[in-house]
């Protein structure tokens, strides 16, 4: 205890210790703020990379469309943890943009892009994916004009209560349009919101939760479509104003397949826009109704993928295993029990079989669909056949022979299945599998940043080393005195270890407080800085974010950073403390 007392006294008497504390505090603060913001960005980025992918995605290995998907989806929905399924028909396409001129004709200079069309089943899509969050349906010119009338003529209108009016207005004129047009509509909305006793923000939310609809098209030759926000940008006019596609404009989708006899196209009317924040998706994708996509590709009744939403992404491995499963967990357990009851040398074989099954499962190829895609049913029947055979073998005695026979049987069955299903295989991936390279890049970036910033703490450690070293040098006589009154080697060492530890701990605490303050108020600070320097530090149009995102659950990160800082401080003071403890009492007393 006297060690703490002496250490504290030494620290109080030497302002250099404050420098050490400040160094640790700055290191910890920088690490906390930077990693927190990076994690915030990562989470945003993950959401964007994921965009409209659901938890699990089922595709054909060969990327060919497959049929009987309704039946398949019905079976998938039986599996535990599965919440919803949505079919998709995706394909590559050449896209031609056709902007409607005021006189009703289309602009002569057509814009061509390459991209992808995605046929979706809208009601199912919004249940199975986050599609609704990314899409904004335009309500058409008539609705806009109607709204303009409401705004210009006051409360003459369609909706009875203020709340209804707000929701109607927001659904008609999107939030971004409200900011683009003059301030008046926004003021009016705010006044209505006030009268209705709700905040404008909750009104925005209500409007956002309104169901997404394809909207109307003038004739059946046109398909309604949602196009990526970047895809819709045509260019600039002579005044430098951006020209974009708007309501009523068309996109013609040409199928890009190697089936030359069957090159087709479909005209679509853009009824809304899709904006995920990932340029790749926003510049390439156009969404249209599933049936239209199937029809124009002459592939009625077939889809290219099924999106499966689960109750939680944590359950993805379980469901995936069930989907891939030759055996359900229950069946596997039963099989192993029987094998184990055979006893003796059969036991190692169980592991071999288990490994074999695992290997097949890991290969993604194991979910073999038969001609009519009743994969799970077939897999189950095979499994049950196997058990029946096994039980027969068990009754016939001779455990070793039975175990070997069983193994052969399993492998034979697998072989037969491989042969039968050969060209019809489905692949189940998680959304992370599908976006692996991008996610890896982001994670690596954060890890590298962590390592680089760790050097800040390391430098603080070196500073602590030299500070404790100078303290030891200036206290050599004290060390002799303390030894002469009974201070042990450990006691002397502890004094200087405590010196470093306290610098680390106090610095970490201050750094954490500062870091938390900054991360909590980062947007206020950013705004204040912007005012000060006079230009935008966080251009919203580049990041597509309203504010700087931060890590919402910084506890473990902060704990790890603080522990690292404290350990580094302790290690840094270890060497001078050890030197101090090794000093001879007599020599230390004699030291001038």
């Amino acid at each position, binding site marked *: 205890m006297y060690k703490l007392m002496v250490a504290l006294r030494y620290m109080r008497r030497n302002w250099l210790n404050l420098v050490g504390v400040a160094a640790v505090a700055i290191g910890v603060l920088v690490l906390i703020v930077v990693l927190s913001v990076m994690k915030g960005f990562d989470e945003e980025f993950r959401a964007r990379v994921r965009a409209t992918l659901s938890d699990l995605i089922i595709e054909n290995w060969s990327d060919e469309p497959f049929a009987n998907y309704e039946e398949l989806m019905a079976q998938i929905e039986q599996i535990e943890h599965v919440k919803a399924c949505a079919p998709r028909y995706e394909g590559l396409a050449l896209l031609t943009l056709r902007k409607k001129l005021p006189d009703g004709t289309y602009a002569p200079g057509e814009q061509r892009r390459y991209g992808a069309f995605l046929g979706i089943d809208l009601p199912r899509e919004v249940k199975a994916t986050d599609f609704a969050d990314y899409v904004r349906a335009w309500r058409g010119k008539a609705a806009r004009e109607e709204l303009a009338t409401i705004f210009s003529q006051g409360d003459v209108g369609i909706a009875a209560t203020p709340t209804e009016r707000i929701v109607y207005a927001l659904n008609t004129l999107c939030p971004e349009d409200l900011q683009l047009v003059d301030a008046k509509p926004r003021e009016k909305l705010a006044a209505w919101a006030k009268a209705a006793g709700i905040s404008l923000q909750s009104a925005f939310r209500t409007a956002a939760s309104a169901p997404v609809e394809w909207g109307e098209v003038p004739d059946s030759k046109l398909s309604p479509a949602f196009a990526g926000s970047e895809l819709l940008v045509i260019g600039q006019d002579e005044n430098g104003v951006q020209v974009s596609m708007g309501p009523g404009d068309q996109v013609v989708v040409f199928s890009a397949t190697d089936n030359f006899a069957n090159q087709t196209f479909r005209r679509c009317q853009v009824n809304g826009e899709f904006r995920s924040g990932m340029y790749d998706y926003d510049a390439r994708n156009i969404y249209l109704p599933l049936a239209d996509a199937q029809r124009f590709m002459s592939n009625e009744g077939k889809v290219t993928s099924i999106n499966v939403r689960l109750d939680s992404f944590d359950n993805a491995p379980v469901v995936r295993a069930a989907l891939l499963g030759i055996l359900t967990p229950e069946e596997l357990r039963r099989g192993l029990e029987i094998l184990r009851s055979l006893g003796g040398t059969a036991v190692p074989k169980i592991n071999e079989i288990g490994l074999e099954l695992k290997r097949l499962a890991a290969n993604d190829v194991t979910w073999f669909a038969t001609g009519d895609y009743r994969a799970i049913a077939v897999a189950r029947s095979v499994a049950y056949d196997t058990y029946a055979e096994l039980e027969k073998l068990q009754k016939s005695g001779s455990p070793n022979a039975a175990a070997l026979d069983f193994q052969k049987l399993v492998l034979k069955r697998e072989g037969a299945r491989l042969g039968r299903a050969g060209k019809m295989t489905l692949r189940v991936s998680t959304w992370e599998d599908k976006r692996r390279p991008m996610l890896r890049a982001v994670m690596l970036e954060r890890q590298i940043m962590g390592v680089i910033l760790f050097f800040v703490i390391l430098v603080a450690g070196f500073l602590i080393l030299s500070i404790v070293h100078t303290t030891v040098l200036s206290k050599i006589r004290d060390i002799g005195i*303390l*030894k002469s*009154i009974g*201070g*042990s080697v450990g006691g002397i060492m502890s004094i200087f270890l405590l010196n470093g530890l306290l610098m680390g701990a106090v610095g970490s605490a201050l750094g954490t407080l500062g870091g938390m303050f900054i991360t909590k108020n980062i947007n206020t600070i950013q705004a204040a800085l912007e005012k000060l320097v006079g230009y935008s530090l966080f251009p919203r149009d580049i990041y597509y974010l309203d504010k700087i995102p931060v890590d919402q659950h910084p506890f473990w990160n902060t704990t790890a950073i603080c522990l690292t800082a404290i350990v580094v401080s302790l290690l840094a003071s270890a060497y001078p403390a050890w030197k101090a403890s090794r000093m001879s*009492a007599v020599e230390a007393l004699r030291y001038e």
Partner: protein
Amino acid sequence: MSNFLSLKEIVKEYPQGDTPLRVLKGVSLDVAQGEYLTIVGASGAGKSTLLHIMGLLDQPTSGELLFEGRDLGKISGLEQAGLRNRLFGFVFQFFHLLPDFNAVENVMMPALVGQGLWGWTRTRRQVRQSAEELLTRVGLKERMKHRPNQLSGGERQRVALCRALINKPRVLLLDEPTGNLDSHTGEEIHELVRTLNREGGQAIVMVTHNEAAARRAGRVIRMLDGEIVSC
């Protein structure tokens, strides 16, 4: 008598070139309980080294240091530290007070060093009380909160004496305690030491140049070139 504190054939050498420097050449000495022993001798005779070895501050090259029959050279460093804390009290020529602590804290320090985490605050209170009593006894009641650099030489040595006494040691070791003081102040310190010896019953071993002080001690030992020449 010999089983209180005894030194047997103590040799101390310092490495120096080819032939090591022999500071102590086989010194044997017995200290009795409650004895007042003075060691006198010229500078470089090895008096201080002998005192340091006696108080476990230094290790002899060879020879034995026995306390109540126990060989103190054979016990662990931690135990030696414990004995320095409880058994011996040191007073040095240059006072050797901790400059960052005030008088009363300096006096308390040995008691605090001996005290673990358990019961810290209570012990601390008691220790402060006894430290204040000691300082009052040596006439430093008004100077307790002063730091060493605010005290005069005599005052510092009195603080050092109180520090040596706070743990009620069995042996008090004084290394030229008055060497750095004027004769008047030195006399005061000697008087104080004598009183303590009479009242406390501690064995006192004092190294000094002061012949007058030595004459008043119970037993005087003369050293010359690392050997005891007369008892």
